[in-house]
């Protein structure tokens, strides 16, 4: 896998011509093979806000049950890509895209697809913890309630399972019916993770989940990510490169809307093939 990594990067350094891109795609195929792939960004995926193009010619495969980190300086489009995966960008007027993204082989831009069903399969945790102004219990079961599942036993079971899974159960089991807004920041973020996994999604998207947290809470979330990857595919956007090295298996480096380098995290950080990657991970810009 590692040897294959170098190739797309060299492609990136040279002029990103369509032919090279296909080549990059083909090398990626070897990096993350078909059976491992869950999410595939393909056909030179591009994305526009109105007339401004923010993502260019992306082709990458995100492996199943691994943590993939998206890094890059502010404005490089990593969050935009993340929000494409659950079509959160649809909330914005005037967006358009080229190319395709598939999850488990299914195109997410298929007109027949219901966005709501997609979002049930692709959970999301946001930069700033955003619990609902409801009780802890109601926060966790929110996704079940909106899909009309109100069976008490099922809800109870889901609450316990999700909270245990997000390592919050012991801290809140005695106050499940109190407001979620009384929790600490780190607890609220873990509650948001519990909320995201209550629906048993296949993918969890995390948009800088620790940027609003202190180091201890961050440590807990990172431990949690490590545990969750046994069951879920996690895509995490982070500004914190140490965090990327700590939690992710693979890392993609974006710059100005382009994928510059994508490969195994240790490889990318210790032996970057690209000058810009090296500059970024060594802190020379960004």
């Amino acid at each position, binding site marked *: 896998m590692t040897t294959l990594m170098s190739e797309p990067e060299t492609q990136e350094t040279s002029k990103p011509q369509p032919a090279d891109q296909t080549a990059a795609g083909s090398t990626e195929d070897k990096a993350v093979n078909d059976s491992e792939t869950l999410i595939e960004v393909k056909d030179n995926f591009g994305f526009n806000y109105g007339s401004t193009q923010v993502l260019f010619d992306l082709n990458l495969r995100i492996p199943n049950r691994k943590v993939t980190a998206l890094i890059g300086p502010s404005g490089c489009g990593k969050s935009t890509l993340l929000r494409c995966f659950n079509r959160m960008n649809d909330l914005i007027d005037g967006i358009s895209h080229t190319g395709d993204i598939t999850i488990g082989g299914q195109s997410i831009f298929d007109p027949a697809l219901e966005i709501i069903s997609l979002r*049930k399969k692709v959970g999301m945790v*946001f930069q700033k913890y*955003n619990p*609902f*102004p*409801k009780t802890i219990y109601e926060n966790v079961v*929110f996704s079940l309630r909106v899909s009309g599942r109100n069976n008490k036993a099922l809800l109870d079971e889901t609450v316990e399972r999700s909270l245990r899974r997000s390592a919050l159960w012991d801290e809140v089991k005695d106050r499940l019916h109190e407001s979620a807004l009384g929790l600490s920041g780190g607890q609220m973020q873990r509650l948001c993770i519990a*909320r995201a996994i209550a*629906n048993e999604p296949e993918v969890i998207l995390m948009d800088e989940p620790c940027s609003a947290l202190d180091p201890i809470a961050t440590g807990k979330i990172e431990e949690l990510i490590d545990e969750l990857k046994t069951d879920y595919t996690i895509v995490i956007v982070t500004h914190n490169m140490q965090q990327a090295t700590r939690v992710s298996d693979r890392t993609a480096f974006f710059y100005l809307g382009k994928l510059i380098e994508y490969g195994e995290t240790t490889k990318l950080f210790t032996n970057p093939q690209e000058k810009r990657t090296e500059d970024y991970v060594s802190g020379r810009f960004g």
Partner: protein
Amino acid sequence: MKLEDLKQRPAGEPMVWLTAMGLALGTVMVVCLLWVIFVNGITVFWPKPVYQLELDANSTHRVSAETNVFAGAISMDREITGADDGTREYQFFVGNKDIYGFMYKFVPQADLVESDRTKLTQPKDIMVAERLEYGNAIFYPVSMQLGTNEVLRAETPDFTTKLYALVEECNERRAKYTALEKKDIGRINHAIRKIDIQIKALTANKTTKEVQADAALTAQIDAKEKEKEKWNAEYEILAKQAEEMREAQEKDSLTYRLVTGEEKTLPLGDFVHIYQPNQFGFGDKVGFFVSQFWGFLSENPREANMEGGIFPAIFGTFVMTVLMSIAVMPFGVLAAIYLREYAKDGLFVRGVRIAVNNLAGVPSIVFGAFGVGFFIYMAGGTIDRLFFPDYVASKVPYFGTGGILWASLTLALMTVPVVVVSTEEALAAVPRAVREGALACGASKWQTIQRVVLPASAPGLLTGLILAMARGAGEVAPLMLVGVVKLAPELPIDSVAPFIHLDYKFMHLGFHIYDVGFQSPDSEAAKPMVFATTFLLILLVVVMNLAAILIRNHLKKKYSTSAF
């Protein structure tokens, strides 16, 4: 670095003073207004001492042609207009309108005899009586006639105790027969009125001959008449009971003599309350104040609204405001949700928003006129035609006339912009992150709004409600067109089925102020009533707003998002 340079004042500091001045000016005006209303409204109920005074022999300010002596309570003490030497004049409340023809009299201080100018005399035994007619009387008691032959002189030691006890007895009896007349006889009157309308409907558009010719119709009418007779019989019994009680009110009577010498005898049933203000200690005064205030709150008006309480007006205002809130909230909130959450921003939506905002600037009387045209004639008329054909046939409108429902809906329409604007603001203030969180959980847009956005913006919605209530409760002009009356015989909610009478006309504090203050013949007598009523209207609005604010704070605690 020179000190001169360091002494430079920062630019724009005087603007701070300007802003502070603006706030101070506003605050002073509001506080002054409230203070004037509060003081004037509340002192109406505080007992004032009654003075017995003598005028100079050549004074032109006599109360009675016969004598220079008079008695009264000071209601105003002011400098004579245009006098430079600071001479004062008093306005006395002399009462006894039935004898003097007026209740207030201005007397310059200089017109009083020498001894009274320095110290006003307060006779201990003088009595003040609140009566059912002609307002208060100020007098010395002479005697009481108990039944037909027993006479109790005022000099008898337990005279006052006995008098008070008998007046109290009369009050209880009055309460009883008013309740009887209002509740039971009211119910019968309702039933009879209904039958009358049915009969009228049966004979509508038919000549007497036609009716007589139609046997089936005659039979129907006869049946109705029989039913009516049954009610009438019941009515007779109750009316007799009431009549007996009314007669009992006339059994005993009090003879009193005014300070100016006139004597008068009135049955005890004509008195509401007799007291001797000059014998009051502080505790008595407080007790008197409380009972007067409570009476004002809880009693029906008397004598063309000039005396008695204003309970029907308070109740009418309250019910109308509640109905208005019930009508305006769902309407305004739904409109705002569509406008903010669903409508695509464009020329049309912007136009709608401008129109809604401008609606707030339409004179309220225009809403009144619209209420008459749309609600009363169109909606009310249609309801009558569809559901109450009897009323239409007998040409008595049921919903097709002014009533509390139409008044509430008119005000609801008037306050819609307030609710829409504040709801829109509240919706916009819900953090985007919370909405995204809900959408990311697989909630649809409506589910997001319903389950997350609306609860989070509930405090903002209540702010809109508070503003709407404050505007609606104080409005008068449109109400005059759509259902407010000077005197409503029945409350919109009572014990006669169906209990809530949306078709009834009602009394309203704001209209009461206008009516008493500007439509009554005696403006001096009306002044205290106007102040007290204004005070109560403000109090009512404050109380209703406080309730809404308490709910809002509760919701804020529950739903405040710590994030963002």
